[in-house]
């Protein structure tokens, strides 16, 4: 099984160390070894935290984008990097918020490191490139929050959606217009 996983995955991290271990686990505790199904045109990782209010406030927006772009081959993942977001916590959180998508508990923070994510909520877009996944966007979802305490009534620029459209259109992916705003991802080295 492990061998097969490696063959199928082929991807992601330039070092080989990952290969022996799964990237993340799902809500049943089973390994998540592949992010992109065959034919996927892009993978979006949404870094979330069950106890971060701003992260939670973006759930409806991520669900909207998931519904809108999964038919075009965009695969969305809900990634939980914080140590306190255990299986039980995330399961109950996802039930509360009625989250239907793919869940990855980033128990070793491999996805966090792969995407260079630091904040929840933050998103990363990868595109398949040969055997690898190449990161083409990382940062904020939109411009509703400029910093903690600096909030627009609603977003006027949708950075993530613009980036997805650019990927699908084969155009250069625009940079996010500002930093992600929310809660720091808690390093795994802490208890």
């Amino acid at each position, binding site marked *: 099984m492990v061998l097969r996983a490696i063959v199928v995955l082929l991807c992601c991290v330039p070092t080989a160390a990952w290969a022996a271990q799964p990237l993340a686990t799902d809500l049943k505790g089973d390994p998540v070894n592949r992010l992109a199904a065959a034919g996927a045109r892009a993978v979006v990782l949404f870094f979330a935290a069950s*106890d971060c*209010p701003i992260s939670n406030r973006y759930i409806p927006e991520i669900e909207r984008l998931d519904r809108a772009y999964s038919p075009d081959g965009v695969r969305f993942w809900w990634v939980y990097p914080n140590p306190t977001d255990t299986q039980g916590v995330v399961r109950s959180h996802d039930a509360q*918020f009625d989250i239907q998508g793919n869940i990855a508990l980033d128990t070793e923070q491999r996805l966090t490191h792969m995407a260079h994510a630091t904040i929840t909520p933050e998103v990363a877009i990868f595109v398949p490139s040969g055997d690898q996944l190449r990161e083409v966007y990382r940062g904020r979802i939109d411009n509703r929050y400029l910093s903690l305490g600096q909030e627009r009534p609603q977003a006027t620029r949708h950075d993530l959606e613009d980036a997805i459209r650019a990927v699908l259109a084969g155009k250069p992916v625009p940079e996010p217009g500002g930093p992600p705003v929310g809660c720091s991802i808690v390093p795994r080295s802490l208890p």
Partner: protein
Amino acid sequence: MRFLRVFFFVAAACAFLAAVLAHRPIRAAESPVTWSRQIAPIVYRNCATCHHPGGGGPFSLLSYQDARRRAPQILDVTQSRYMPPWLPEPGYGDFADQRRLSNEDLALIRKWVESGTPEGNPAEAPPAPHYDATWQMGKPDLILSVERPYTLAASGTDVFRNFILPYPLAQTHYIRAMEILPAVPQIVHHANVLIDRTASFRRQHPGDWKNGVPGMELELDAGNTFDPDSHFLFWKPDTPVLVEPEGMPWRLDPGNDLILNMHLKPSGKPETMSAQIGLYFASQPATKQPMLLQLEDDRDLDIPPGVHNFVVQDQLTLPVDVDALGIYPHAHYLGKILEGWATLPDGRRKWLIRIPSWDIDRQSVYRYREPVYLPRGTVLHMRYVYDNSDDNIHNPNSPPIRVRAGNRSVDEMAHLWLQVLPVNVPPGSPDPRLLLEVAWMRRRLEKQPDDSIAGYNLASALASLGRYSEAETAYEKLLSRRPDDVRVMNGLGAAFEDAGDPEAAERVFTQALSIDPHGCDARFNLASVEVRQSHFQDAEHQLRTMLQDCPADAAAHCGLGVALAGEGDNAAAASEFQSALHMDPHNFTALYQLGEIAIASGQPQQAVSLLEDASRTRPGDVDTRERLAMALAQSGRPDDALAQLREAEHLAPDNANLHSLLSQLLAESGQLRQAIEEQTRALALQPDDADGWNNLGVLEARTGSLDAARTDFRRALQLAPGHQQARANLDRLSPH
């Protein structure tokens, strides 16, 4: 006599007196900064009120592990002063519930995080604060709940919604503390509680009020009595319990509604909430009557798109000495710099508040640590700066559009509320809040001459002050614009009656009743005129008709009681007064009248108890003290009677009748010399009182001053040649 009043309300509220613990200086340089020694005290004092399980904050900070995990974020949000939330600029008002971290605290937090968040010796850490999962002050005396749960959508812009909670009791209560349980505190930014004295908002929304009504600000009908809003009833996550200062509870009457005006923030999932309000009753009515004053300039709020610095201002001159107790600045999303200050009569500027970077999400009521004394003649100022450009990220319109005043979140507001308590009130002067009202409404009319609410309130206040011709002019002006306005007619009629023109008053009230035959106010007022003219049967008829339309009106029961007593039916009258007392245990008229009936029916001890209650309700009422003194004297308590009269004399030193009564009581207890002094004072004030001269003569005679006594009796006879007692007394003293 009633008069009517409309009050335009924006938001009331009361910040609770957060105990600000003394800041203990900590020497940072000597030893490593640890959680246990330095950081836990800072966090517990400034953060834990929200950041505890079940609190308004998204996560708890009650343990070292909690804080360590969040350390990078704690560093970030404290250094940027995003947390703890605190808008006012230091040095511009000294506030009781200040939450701003000192620079020293910030340095300690930075050092702690940068040195790897050491815990230190856990034994040195203070115990974590304890927060009750439900009511912080124990079970309330009364819990009100919203009629129906409300579900806030998962996403979208913020929601402003008003939930109506009718006050269900049939008695008046005074509220010393209030706690709001929003059920889901994380989604509630802040809440205001408004008192709707007349359930007017519920009546405006008969079909949908149970679901809550959208809107940021409301217009409420304040009812028939001069009863200005007095308290800030404001809730935010870190101040769940509002405790009023001693002597300043607020009042709820039967028929009142509480309106919970909430600013809600979507959380990402649908949130169903059933808010509750817990009320704690005071045992005594209020002894201090504060008032909320408003500066505003909504009329000038017409902000072109793209303008960065749009200024609006207002000012108001204080007609009486006040202590400012609290302040509540309010604007919507375009507000940038909000300033309030007072120019004292000597020209000095005293800052009341300055918010250099306004954020509606962090709005609050601020209470002064010590009352701010503002003498008569002080000018209150408000100056707000608005930014309607793209650079203002709070701007709800992209691209910016022209914005005017209004109560939707895309509209704007420019309001500054100040809670003031009149001080240095000379004895016997009218309610100083009426003078504040007149000044405030005149200012509103200067800004907006067609402001009918201000015109109405001004006329009502003038009438209450006894300035009837000014009041009549103000009412007539309103009627010229709105000839069918029943409410204005009631005010005008009341002014006529108080000015001594009952025929004109009856005419106006009758006209009002022809427009609205079920109008309880007009009928009550008409009945009052009839009572004053001793037309008791007519009054009884009017009041019985009125009670069919308004059965729960304590004043109507009182009026009916007065009419029945006038017809000689004390038993029926007492029953009506009892009905009024059942609805309002502190109803002054009912207590007073029942006391009178008890005196008349030879039950002075019962009268004492009733009149003592009446006097507690209106401590400054001289007449009540006088009647109480009489009941005390009849109950064999002359010393207590004397004490009441002395107190009354202190309140009304120029009341001749009081000096006469004092003289009689003193004479009965054998204190003749003092009795003569008091009677002499009475006659100095009222020299035409033949009885008084006769009484003085008797006292002089009893002390042996026969010549003086003869002079007094002759004086009485000069004033009233047929005065038989004076004649007999003089004859007795005349040498045969």
